[in-house]
């Protein structure tokens, strides 16, 4: 059979990248009998990617400064074409992601999938849940409207109620004793650089472990 240019290109790349091997190992894995609850991890991953993409788009216009944060978001909502859509997706998927990640954890708990050899997958999962909530917390302040301002005031005040270290934690979160430009800026940095970087790293290990151990079987009557 005469191979087309496309096939030639593919086999050239495959010889060097091992595309077929990667496909076999990553996607062509054996799976236990299908169950919709097992899709929630992938749903979390999808939402994370969606948030990353819409979030990057938002940073094209958003300005993390007390003078302009609110106005820049008004601008996105009223002037930028499809700005309402991009922000809307980011806004609603943020809540959805927390919910989906949480239900994913519940399913892992109820199917007892956290047991040997998947304890580490579970522990990393806890990190992922905390980071996801952290994304929600830091993102909530960014519009810098009344609700955001007071929610963060309250949230950081709660963190400040930790015995002994409380005041230090509160000042570290706010970048000083009060909510200020420093708070907004560091929440922004956490929201777009620090937490996503940690999320990507942990998701990578999480997925590696899933591929390594395979998916657990759904418990049946005998278990």
């Amino acid at each position, binding site marked *: 059979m005469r191979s087309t240019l496309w096939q030639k290109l593919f086999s050239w790349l495959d010889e060097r990248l091992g595309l077929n091997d990667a496909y076999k190992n990553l996607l062509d894995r054996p799976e236990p009998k299908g169950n919709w609850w097992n899709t929630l991890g992938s749903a979390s991953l999808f939402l994370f990617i969606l948030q990353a993409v819409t979030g990057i*788009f938002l940073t*094209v*216009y958003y*300005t993390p400064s007390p003078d*302009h944060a609110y*106005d*820049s978001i*008004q*601008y996105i909502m009223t*002037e*930028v*074409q*499809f*700005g309402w*859509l*991009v922000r809307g997706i980011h806004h609603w998927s943020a809540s959805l992601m927390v919910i989906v990640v949480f239900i994913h954890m519940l399913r892992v708990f109820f199917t007892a999938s956290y047991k040997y050899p998947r304890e580490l997958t579970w522990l990393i999962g806890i990190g992922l849940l905390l980071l996801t909530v952290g994304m929600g917390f830091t993102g909530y302040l960014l519009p810098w409207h009344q609700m955001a301002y007071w929610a963060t005031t309250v949230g950081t005040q709660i963190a400040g109620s930790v015995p002994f270290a409380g005041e230090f934690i509160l000042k570290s979160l706010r970048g000083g004793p009060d909510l200020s430009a420093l708070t907004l800026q560091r929440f922004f940095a956490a929201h777009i650089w620090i937490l996503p970087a940690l999320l990507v790293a942990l998701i990578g290990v999480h997925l590696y472990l899933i591929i390594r151990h395979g998916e657990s079987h759904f418990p049946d009557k005998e278990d």
Partner: protein
Amino acid sequence: MSGSNHISRRDFIKVTTGAIGGFIAGVLGIPSIAYMISPALREDKAGKPMPIGKLEDIPIGTPHPFSFTITKVNGWERTAASYGGFILRKSEDPNDILVLSSRCTHLSCRVNWNETAGAFLCPCHDAKFSKEGEVLDGPPPEPLGHFTHEVDAEGYITIIPVEQKAG
């Protein structure tokens, strides 16, 4: 499948996958691009007439500098940008005036009038323009631009702050 006018299952899948894929790519792609280039699609409004000086204060025969500031709303902020140029009274005749822009036609640096050289010099790549804006030396492809102006009864000069091509 030759001779049959049914399309094969394989081809059907190919075509539908292509069509649906294309549709999804469009639904995602068009808003994404529109979102990114949105500010570039806004039209720049022509500015209001700007007063730039009084006839009697301007010497005859040498370019006289002027400048003005235009405030524009860019996104969520007002930005003041300053522009400038030179008024050249060629003779006593109040209508014999040329209002040149100081924006170099090479790559937009600002030219200055140099009395000893008797020319406008551009600091960026050594361009030289005559008193009336023609290119004497250097890389600029065309003469300096100018502003349309008006002189009122009391001798006040106003310009429409939109640069016009020479000629």
